[in-house]
């Protein structure tokens, strides 16, 4: 049993062994612990961050903080204009974008197709009728126009098209009957069909963004023209995306709208509730994969500490024997090694926390890592990080204890005399 006396003597020994150990050795061990800690936190954080990056894209580019959308039983939000006016008047609201939305089919090769049996080069898309100015203020849509130009409110028969709908950008592969459009550039004519109404339009610009961006599979047109295509003369929209002013809680605002009566005619959701089905499952899957990878990192860290302490204890076996010989308890010696392991781990963790929260998280948040499927950030909530810190501390203490125990248990005189 370890007594307070053992802890006191162990602490005394550990302090001095650490203080007078080689700074290079200590630095190397601390560096390994730092990398291990970052591996534990950042790998999972980045994997989750990939999915959170998708969520962030939806929040920034489509849903805003809260979105009011068409209920499943309706084709539009009834009394939309009054609701928009009501929402605009609320002090929490920073800006909104009201959209007409519909599924559509877009066909590219209808002009060059001479054989009736030739397959149509068509694809499905979500068409949004927007106020180009309001939409740009809301989602910064113009900044994603990689080819061509952004829409003007006065444009007619002109569209913006998402890059995933175009063959040379898409990596989705062919889906029978719905193939990304080939040979489509700004200025190309395409045919768009909404609810049986077909119109020929010109591609004004191509929205170039990551594959999982909601913009990547969207088609944007000025709202007036979409209203005509949809036959929507009552100005009832399908989506009202709301961006709140800094500091307001989306959940509280959702509840406010729901209780104010908007919830009776529309679906009111926060951005996290409006994320497409499956994203949360992907997030959970990535988190589990991250945890599995982190577990390997934890084992590697434990083995590293084990080896360091084992070598330290083996080379100091004679001194351990002498300590036992003059009456220092084995437990106190073991505790001194546990303290040393803990010291290495905690210094590594402290530096790791500074690197993580002082640099990596804010930097990657400001400059997301651009990946084909999303702009990844690092998700590292403090409670989860602290849990990993505790796991690392526990693993290193055990990894420090076992080799120390192995050496301390050896015969005292054999240790002093260096006999096997």
């Amino acid at each position, binding site marked *: 049993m370890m007594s307070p006396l053992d802890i006191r003597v162990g602490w005394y020994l550990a302090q*001095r062994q650490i203080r007078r150990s080689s700074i290079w050795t200590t630095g190397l061990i601390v560096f390994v612990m730092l990398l291990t800690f970052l591996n534990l936190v950042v790998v999972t954080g980045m994997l989750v961050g990939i999915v959170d990056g998708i969520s962030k894209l939806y929040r920034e580019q489509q849903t805003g903080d809260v979105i009011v959308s068409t209920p499943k039983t309706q084709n539009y939000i009834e009394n939309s204009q009054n609701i928009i006016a009501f929402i605009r008047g609320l002090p929490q609201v920073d800006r909104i974008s009201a959209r007409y939305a519909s599924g559509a089919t877009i066909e590219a090769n209808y002009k060059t197709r001479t054989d009736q049996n030739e397959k149509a080069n068509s694809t499905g898309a979500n068409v949004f009728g927007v106020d180009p100015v309001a939409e740009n203020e809301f989602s910064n849509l113009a900044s994603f126009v990689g080819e061509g130009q952004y829409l003007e409110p006065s444009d007619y028969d002109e569209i913006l098209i998402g890059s995933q709908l175009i063959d040379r950008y898409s990596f989705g592969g062919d889906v029978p009957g719905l193939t990304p459009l080939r040979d489509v550039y700004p200025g190309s004519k395409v045919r768009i069909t909404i609810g049986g109404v077909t119109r020929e339009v010109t591609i004004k610009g191509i929205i170039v963004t990551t594959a999982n961006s909601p913009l990547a599979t969207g088609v944007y047109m000025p709202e007036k023209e979409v209203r005509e295509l949809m036959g929507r003369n009552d100005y009832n929209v399908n989506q009202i995306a709301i961006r709140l002013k800094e500091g307001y809680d989306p959940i509280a605002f959702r509840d406010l709208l729901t209780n104010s009566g908007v919830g009776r005619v529309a679906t009111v959701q926060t951005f996290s509730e409006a994320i497409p089905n499956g994203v949360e499952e992907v997030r959970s899957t990535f988190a589990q994969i991250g945890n599995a990878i982190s577990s390997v990192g934890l084992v590697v860290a434990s083995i590293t500490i084990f080896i360091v302490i084992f070598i330290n204890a083996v080379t100091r076996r004679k001194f351990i024997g002498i300590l036992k010989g003059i009456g220092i308890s084995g437990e106190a010696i073991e505790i001194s090694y546990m303290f040393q392991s803990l010291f290495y781990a905690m210094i590594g963790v402290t530096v790791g926390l500074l690197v993580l929260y002082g640099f990596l998280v804010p930097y990657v948040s400001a400059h997301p890592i651009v990946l084909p499927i999303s702009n990844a950030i690092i998700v590292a909530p403090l409670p989860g990080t602290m849990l990993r810190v505790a796991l690392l501390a526990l693993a290193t203490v055990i990894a420090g204890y076992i080799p120390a125990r192995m050496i301390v248990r050896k015969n005292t005189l054999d240790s002093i005399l260096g006999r096997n």
Partner: protein
Amino acid sequence: MSETNYMLETRDLEKTFKTGTVVTPVLKGIDFHVANGEWVSIMGRSGAGKSTLLYQMSLLDEPTSGEIYIDGREAHTLTEREKMRMRLYEFGFVFQEYALMPELTALENVVLPLLMKRFSYDAARERAKSALGRVGLSARLGNLPSALSGGEQQRVSIARAIAERPEILFADEPTANLDHESSDVIMGIFRELHSDGQTIVMVTHEEEYGAMTERIVRIDDGRVLSGEPASDKRP
């Protein structure tokens, strides 16, 4: 409790080493005793078993058979933890190679066992300073062993052993690694300790230093040859 009146006594002590099928008896029935306050040297040729005897008596090793009594108490039946406590509280050790912790200063080397004896840190420091002063190292308290000469390291080792006066001071060839001048200093300290009533059991192969003790016990081939009074007793 035994009826023995000695500070240390062994009866029919045997120690045999086994390596595979090879059996090597090193101690072959040693009867040995040291009175309270006595300074005894154990001498003999190399391989005679003198250090092995010291290790058994000081409870650093487990005898194959026989009995050991410390101040009348059976020591050969103690558990490892009890032996550790006896080594801590009742014995002092001076090893041939000083046996100091390299990362502890002279003062810290002496403080460490005192902390294990539940001294407060301040009290331990004071006592350690006093012990180091007694061996003439008051000016070297903050030095690491690597910054001390062999003789100085051995004096730190003695200070550690006597910081809280032990019942028995065991010394295993304390001058073997020292030059003549340093050896004389060490032996001078032992003589002083003995004059204060300290019981000392010392292994040495140097006749000159053996002669400084009260009694020389000569062993050879694992047996006690003689236990004659030392011829050259220098006060």
